[in-house]
């Protein structure tokens, strides 16, 4: 279980990006974090990834403190961040330096097949489209078999068709090994399609505002009435989170448990 206990982050310039964020994420759960700009979503993700240290509070995975990048935690960024001097296959195998060459080849080939890019194994990253590059980034993150995969707005730079395609593809890949996914997104549609739970954050400073369980069965029909209703509820919560006059639920219940719908 991934546990965030009153996690806060204040940057050296005094900006209070994240304040007393607490939640518990079960193994295999998909949690979407949404909120307006500057609400600390990416700060939260970077703290879990160990790229930035939290100023206070604790992040633990199965009881082990996460203070630096951890082998069980992978991350996919907004941009693919492929290494331009490595082929697609070598990019995917980048994190597999501690396994034998044979196993690395097999796992990379399997990952390439899963993301539908077997024919691009020897291509340079510059030869890929945006969607293909992001598929490679997904394969690179999943090939090391993380228990927790963090996704920082991974599809936001893609067109609507590619985004939808990759969302479905991500779910297919997730269903194979069921790692815990923590997805930061601006896209309510994406949150409702993918997540078991949506965490709404409030900006300045970034705090947990509300949480919502999404109990829709998968695969989710984006055109169903229930999908629309769920989306509207999330949007309402998002609107309220941006209203500074709205009462702060975290003041009443720090973990946010009492606010679940």
């Amino acid at each position: 279980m991934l546990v965030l206990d009153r996690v806060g982050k204040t940057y050296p310039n005094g900006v209070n990006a994240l304040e007393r964020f607490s939640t518990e994420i079960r193994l295999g759960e998909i949690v979407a974090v949404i909120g307006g700009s500057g609400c600390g979503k990416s700060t939260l993700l970077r703290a879990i990834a160990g790229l930035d240290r939290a100023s206070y509070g604790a992040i633990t995975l199965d009881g082990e403190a996460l203070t630096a990048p951890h082998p069980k935690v992978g991350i996919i960024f907004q941009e693919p961040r492929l290494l331009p001097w490595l082929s697609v296959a070598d990019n995917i195998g980048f994190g597999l330096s501690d396994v034998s060459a044979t196993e690395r080849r097999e796992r990379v080939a399997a990952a390439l097949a899963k993301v539908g890019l077997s024919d691009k194994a020897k291509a340079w990253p510059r030869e890929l489209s945006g969607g293909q590059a992001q598929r490679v980034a997904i394969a690179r993150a999943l090939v090391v078999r993380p228990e927790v995969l963090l996704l920082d707005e991974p599809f936001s730079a893609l067109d609507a068709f590619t985004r939808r395609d990759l969302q479905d593809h991500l779910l297919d890949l997730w269903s194979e090994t069921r790692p815990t996914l923590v997805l930061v997104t601006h896209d309510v549609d994406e949150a409702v399609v993918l997540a078991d739970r949506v965490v709404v954050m409030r900006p300045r400073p970034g705090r947990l505002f509300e949480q919502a369980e999404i109990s829709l069965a998968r695969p989710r029909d984006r055109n169903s009435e229930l999908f629309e209703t769920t989306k509207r509820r999330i949007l309402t919560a998002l609107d309220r989170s941006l209203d500074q006059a709205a009462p702060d639920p975290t003041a009443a219940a720090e973990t946010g448990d009492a606010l679940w719908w």
Partner: protein
Amino acid sequence: MTMTLDTPVESTQSLAPPSAARWRRWTRPALGLLLPLTAAVAWEWAVAAGWSNGRLVPPPSTVISTIDELARSGELFRHMATTLERVGAGFALGVAAGTVLGAISGYWGLARQLLDPTIQALRAIPSIAWVPLFILWLGIFELSKVALIAVGVFFPIYLGVMGAILSVDRKIVEVGRTFRLSGPAMIRRILLPAVLPAYVVSLRVGLGLGWMFVVAAEFMGASEGLGYLLIDGQQLGKPAQILAAIVIFAILGKTTDWLIEIAAMPFLRWQDAFAPSRGAF
């Protein structure tokens, strides 16, 4: 209803007929030779027509026959070999020192604060100012000459390496961090490949300066080398010999620069860089 078809897009290079590609391979170097050859032919014609006596600026035919004479006597190769040895040794020393110190300054902030102000101050000193000191310290023979060339090569390499490391994309470094690369692994797998294009450029700049500094070095009482040929030509009033030495400098400089370019090419195939030669302009 609109349907889209996935059409494989091939690069324009592969679409070009082989004969056109062959034609381009030969025309590009030929284009580079067009200007100097036109100037040479024009000057030859001007001297032949009697518009100039060609005494101070000899025509290309005289320069070529001087080169031929020097080559036949074996003198040319002796001078070329001496100069190449000096440039080679100075370049190797300058590259080694510039790479190590540039990497240290680029990678560690404390080292940069400690080293960089001094190195930048030394960089501002005119190269010729080192000559008397090097002669005093290292003598009039090879060591002082090699040291002067190494000084010339050192600064562009140092600046190039330090600047390239400082400008490596933080996002790429974070990829290495997420995969928990150790310090040496981060340098080998992320930083070195990332700085390679800038490093190659600084090597070429450094080599160019090495060729410039070897002339200054060979003015310091040399009895061999292309720089000596220049001085000798000036003192004995042989402009054809001076021009012959200049032409040889140009050929050697361009050839060694081209060798670096060729050697680096396989390592830089991945670059997604603007390439006007591909026909953008």
